Each structure stands twice: as C-alpha cells, then as structure tokens.
C-alpha cells in the first residue's frame, strides 16, 4: 500500500531501457556510474542506503531484502513523486534499479517492509542538473514516461501476486486465497484507468456478476473467484477461471507496454480513480462478497496520487499554489484511511458506520476538486 509514480525517463526510449532495469540478475559492472550501484539493505525495521548523495543523471541502486516480509524500495521527489521504484522484493532477494534523475534537489529514499504505509524514509540529495531537464515539454515528456514505467511495474508486480492468489485457488486453499485476494487486486486497482482503456480487458478481469455481457460470454475475473471463495465455494471451473485471469493480465502487460499516454490522459486517470472511490468503494459495490473495498480504495488513491505526482513538476511550473493543496488533500485522505487499518490491511466494509462513510466521502470530495483541475492545467 503505497503511493506511486516516477518521472525519471525523458523519452520513450529511455523508458524502454529502464523497464528492463529491475531484475534479480547481478548488476552489470559500472551500471551505477562511478563506484557501482548504491547498496540498499532493506530489513523489516531498517533501510540502510550506502550513500545519501549522487550526481544528476542515471543513479543505480542494488536493493537486498534482508528481512522476512516482501518489501518495496522507492525514490521520491516533491509531493511523493515516484522517481524510481522496485516492487515485490521477496525475502532474501536482491533487485537492481536504475533511476534517471535529470534535476538536482532534495529527494527521499524509502523501504516498505510489508508494503505498508509511508515506509522507512531518508533524505537523498541529487547534485547538478542534466541540461534542458526543466523545460516545459521535457517535464511533460518526463511525466508521461515516468507514469508509463509505473504502469508497467505495477502490472509486473500484479501478475506475480495474482499468480500466488490463483495458485491458492487451484490448490483449493480457500483461506490462503481469501487472504491474497485483496492484495493481488491492489496493483490492478492502482492502474485501472489504463486497464480500462483496453475496452475488452476490464470486463474480463474486473467484471461484476450483474454486468451486461454478450450472449455466450461467461463471467470471469477477480470477482467471479471472489464469489466462489466467499459465497458459493470453489467450483469445477474455478481453476480455469484463474488461468484465464492470468492470461488476461499478461495480455494487459503486452498491450500496456506499447500504449502512448498523453499528459491529459494521466490527469484524467487520476480523477477517474477518485471517481471510482466515490462511486464504487465508499458504496461497498466493488467487493460485495469479500467486503475488502478499503484495499481497493487505498489502491485507487495510490494510483491517483502516482499520476498527479508524475505531473508534479509541470503542475508546479504552471500553478505553484495547486501542488501544496494536492499534498494536503492527499494527506487528509491518507489520515482518514489509516483510521481503518487493521494489521497490514483494512477493516471490512461491513464494519463501517454511516459516519465513517461520510468522513471518507468528505475527504475524497475535498481531494477530487483540485485533482480535477490538473488536466486543464497540463493541457494549457
């Protein structure tokens, strides 16, 4: 549960290059510039980064999970703009990350053991500037490239976690599958507007029982398995539904890798994710069998913030007052949601009172208005 975004690459080429840069393979010699990659030791309670400063340009990190929980590593800019990230690092694993940081300034590194909360944070300074990095068009190109990289990394992590969920379904391990259901959906929910842009994938992956389908088209995806797990019990075709879900997510991965987003689409995606919260999550419609709507709520807000944060340098250039308002309103939503945290997850929707829902609606309304201003700003 974290917020996302990145805005490192300045062009699609750079993005493609970076997309291949998180792997379990040992870092190639010299990839991190002088002195090799910056070493990150991520335990359950600490996040030790071997350097706190680097020159602008490509910065390389080698992240080792020395703890017992799955962890994530982030580099943030202003407004929690994700400059670089690695998701889903299992215990004992190492991953490498190359972050392109063209603009000097104050950044933040964070490890998130258990993928929960704001993470274990520390300041990180980038010195100097890559020439031309702060010009308007470069900022927007950087935003788009960063968000596309975010999307791709979310899909990759989502596939891994959903495979665990599907494996549990196929093994008939209902309790484990139930525990993995809301977690595996998180990645999907963070990037839902991108997924929805492929009109055929969304109904297959996230359709609901009462959605209208063409004759002969079966109900598939997360919610079909949700009903099997919580209501009807596993069915003879549950395993096949699980395999279909994985195939559909891989289809998404292939197609998302080539999609060309615009800054306005990013901004509208951020708004649409909050609309999803207002009309689907606070109402308890999304996860009507499991009542795990607050996981999806969290993920939608994460995704919205990721898109806004990607655009943040461009926003700051055009309307310096909007960024701080967005920061405050996102923080207000975070504070409300944190009140409903239970362990690494959230209370069930059925445990919420009318007053709880009112409080959530207020916070999301308050956030939705300034987020709705971003598209016009970046289009100008």
């Amino acid at each position: 549960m974290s917020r996302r975004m990145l805005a490192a690459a300045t062009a699609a080429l750079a993005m493609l290059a970076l997309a291949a840069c998180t792997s379990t393979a040992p870092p190639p010699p010299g990839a991190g510039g002088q002195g090799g990659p910056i070493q990150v030791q991520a335990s359950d309670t600490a996040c030790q980064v071997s350097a706190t400063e680097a020159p602008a340009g490509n910065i390389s990190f080698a992240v080792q999970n020395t703890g017992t929980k799955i962890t994530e590593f982030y580099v943030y800019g202003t407004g929690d703009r994700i400059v670089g990230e690695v998701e889903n690092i299992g215990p004992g694993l190492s991953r490498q990350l190359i972050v392109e940081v063209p603009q000097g300034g104050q950044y933040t590194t964070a490890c998130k053991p258990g993928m929960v909360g704001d993470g274990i944070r520390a300041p990180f300074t980038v010195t100097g500037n890559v020439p031309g990095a702060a010009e308007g068009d470069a900022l927007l190109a950087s935003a788009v490239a960063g968000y596309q990289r975010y999307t791709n990394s979310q899909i990759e992590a989502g596939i891994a976690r959903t495979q665990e969920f599907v494996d549990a379904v196929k093994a008939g391990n209902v309790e484990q599958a139930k525990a993995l259901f809301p977690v595996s959906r998180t990645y999907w929910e963070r990037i839902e507007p991108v997924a929805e842009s492929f009109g055929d994938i969304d109904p297959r992956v996230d359709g609901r029982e009462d959605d209208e389908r063409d004759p002969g088209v079966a109900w598939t995806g997360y919610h079909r398995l949700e009903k099997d797990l919580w209501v009807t019990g596993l069915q003879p075709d549950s395993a096949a539904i699980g395999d279909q879900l994985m195939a559909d997510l891989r289809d998404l991965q292939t197609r998302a890798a080539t999609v060309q987003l615009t800054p306005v689409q990013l901004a509208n995606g951020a708004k649409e994710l909050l609309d999803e919260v207002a009309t689907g999550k606070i109402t308890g419609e999304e996860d009507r069998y499991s009542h795990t709507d607050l996981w999806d709520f969290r993920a939608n807000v994460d995704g919205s913030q990721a898109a806004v944060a990607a655009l943040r340098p461009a926003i700051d250039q055009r309307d310096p007052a909007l960024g701080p308002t967005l920061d405050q309103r996102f923080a207000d939503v975070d504070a409300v949601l944190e009140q409903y945290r239970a362990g690494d997850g959230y209370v069930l929707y059925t445990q919420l009172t009318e007053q709880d829902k009112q409080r959530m609606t207020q916070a999301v309304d308050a956030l939705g208005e300034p987020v709705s201003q971003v598209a016009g700003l970046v289009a100008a």
Partner: protein
Amino acid sequence: MTRSGLRGVSRRRLLGWTGAGAALAGAGAVAGFAAGESATEPAPDPSGGVVPFRGPHQAGIVTPAQDRLHFVALDLTTTDRRAVISLLQRWTTAAERMTAGAEAAPGGAVNRNPEAPPSDTGEALGLPAAALTITFGIGGSLLDKLGIPRPPELADLPPFQQDQLDPAFSGGDLCLQACANDPQVAVHAVRNLVRTGFGTTSVRWSQLGFGRTSSTSTTQQTHRNLFGFKDGTNNLKAEETDLLDQHVWVPPEQGPPWMAGGTYLVARRIRMHVETWDRTSLAEQESLTGRTKGVGAPIGQAQEFDLPNLGPGSPIGVDAHIRLASAENNGGAKILRRGYNFVDGSDGLGHLNAGLFFVAFMRDPHRQFVPMQSALARRDKMMEYIEHTGSAVFAVPPGLGDGAYWGRTVLEG
C-alpha cells in the same frame, strides 16, 4: 469583482431588464459591474429581475418572498481560519455573480479550457436572474470551532415537547438560503457554492421548498400551506420598517458589533401528516387553525386582514393555532416568517413526506421564537398532525458594503 470579471460571462449576456423587475433590481448597483454587456441584447425578465446583493441588510429576508427555496446547512471540515476566510471570499464573489444572473465564475460552463472541468455547472445557462437571493448565516457551532464567543441569542434552542428532531436535519456550522422564482436557479446557486466549499465545508443537510407560505410584502398575496390554509397573514412586512427595527434587525446596542443590522434565522423542518389532516372535517380544521379555510379570515370576522378578536367572548378557541402564535399571547413578540412547503417524495409507508420548512427571522430567538414554540408545542391541537423533524439557528450578519465579504467582521474582528 471587476467589470472585466463579468464581461462576456453573464448567463443572460446582459442585465438590461425592463419592466416590473427594474423596481427590485437596483439597476445602478448592478450596472456598476455589468455595464458594457447590457447594450446588446435587452431582455425583459418577467421572473423578478435582479435583487441587489449588497446593502445595509442581506437580501432574502425582507425581499418579497420568491416562489422557490433551496436551503443548505454545511459543516466546516477544517478549523483553519484562513481557509474559512478564503472560502467566504470565494463564496461572496460567486454569489454576487449568480444573483446578477452571471455564471458562478469567469469562464463559466463552456468558455474555458476544454480539458478543464467547467467553472460553472451550467444548468442555469440562458435562465434569468429570477430574483435570486443568497442569504448567509453562521451557526453557533462554527463560532465554537473557531474560538469566537457565541452571542447569547445564538445559544442552542431548548428541546420542545413532542420534538422528533433528526440530527441529520438539524444544526450546521453555516447556512445558505437561496431563494428565486425559478427552482433551477436556486438549485444552481447552492450546487455551485457547495462545490466551491469542498475541502473546507461539507453539506450537512439541505432542503428544497416551493409555494412560499409567507408573504413578506404588502404587495404579495398570502399563499397557502399544505393544510390548505393561508399562512402568514399576520406576518411582518417589508414596508413596516419600524416593526422590523423593533423585531427583526439587531440594533447596535444589542451586540456583538458584527451583528448590528443583522438578524437571527430559525429553521424548523415540520413534517405534516397530510393524510390524516385530509380526513378531518372542515369545521375541525378551521377550529384548530382559528381561521376560515376560504378567505382566511379570523373566526368571527369577514376578511383575511380583519384583526382577530382574542379578548373575552372570543369565538377563537383557547388552543387555536393563531391565538397561541399571536403577539398578544407572546408578550408582543413578532417574527418575520419566510417558510416554504416541501414534498420530499414519499416516506416508504405509502404517505407523502410533506410539510412546511419554517424559516423565520428575528432579533432574539430566545425571546421571540422560544416562548411561542413552547406554547404551541404544549397546547396547539395542530400538533396531532405535525412533527418537528429538523431544527437550526443561525446568526445572519448585516448586509455587505462594497468590497466586503460574508463573515469578514466575524472572522477578522
């Protein structure tokens, strides 16, 4: 508000109304920020024209009661005084624009960056100002939250016998009363102000009203409530300036300074069980009310505006509604009523969710409204047919001078 701020964005393209509206319109005041648009497209506004937004008292109190109401009570979602001030400034600007028939903000519904959401929601495009007034009030709870002492007049109302108050329809840190002769104009005003408030305020409750049940000017006929009776015959009227000074406007010596020229608003949502009332004989209905149903004359008199005989030998029952509510029965206290009928759909049990949204203005709710309501709640036989389901009191500060915004004197001291 600058002249250029409105140029080209007026909902009606101009404010050059003629005819009956002009008397209300205070043409000079509005022309000050709409000149330049009005020459091109003169359009008479049969729906009441423009009511001046600024003046010694807020509009929407002694303004001849418009046909429609949208009332909203809001709560602060912050205690940051600067955020509240910023909102009240933006509200004032938008309200002044809308009462002049313009869109809520420059750019409006269609003339802005197409990738941005419109700055006006658009449902009033092409509609006249329709005598829109927006009256602003402050609840005691707002003062508590911001650490400002409550005037004693703003103390919470005591409970009354048979109250069935729903917290979801009671109280509020702020209120906005939008009245207009077109329901869509009133709803548009509230909707845009609510939208402006997101992040600083949230809606606590809201009430639509129709068929004004009170006349507030001698030029208006008395309308009827949903019991079918003329309501508010004996109301204070705009023309009775001495009585308004005596009963409605807070004099400077009453205090606090920010309320001089202001007034207090009492709102009561009164559910009326019209189904059982409709099974009641005409004689009983008239006896409970104290007036005839036809012309609305006091029992024993011939005409609506004949004075009721409340003295010895009166034909009006001791528990009749007009007796209990009369100034004579309440130490001379009078109030300015400005209520509306409502039907909020049905109640799920096969009955209309209907009633009277009572709104009244007065100098001191505890001296004027409380004794009256206390007597009615205990003795009025009409209580068998009605139920008070919502209640709120707001301080309504005086009107605004040029450049001032709602609440400035309260928040900036």
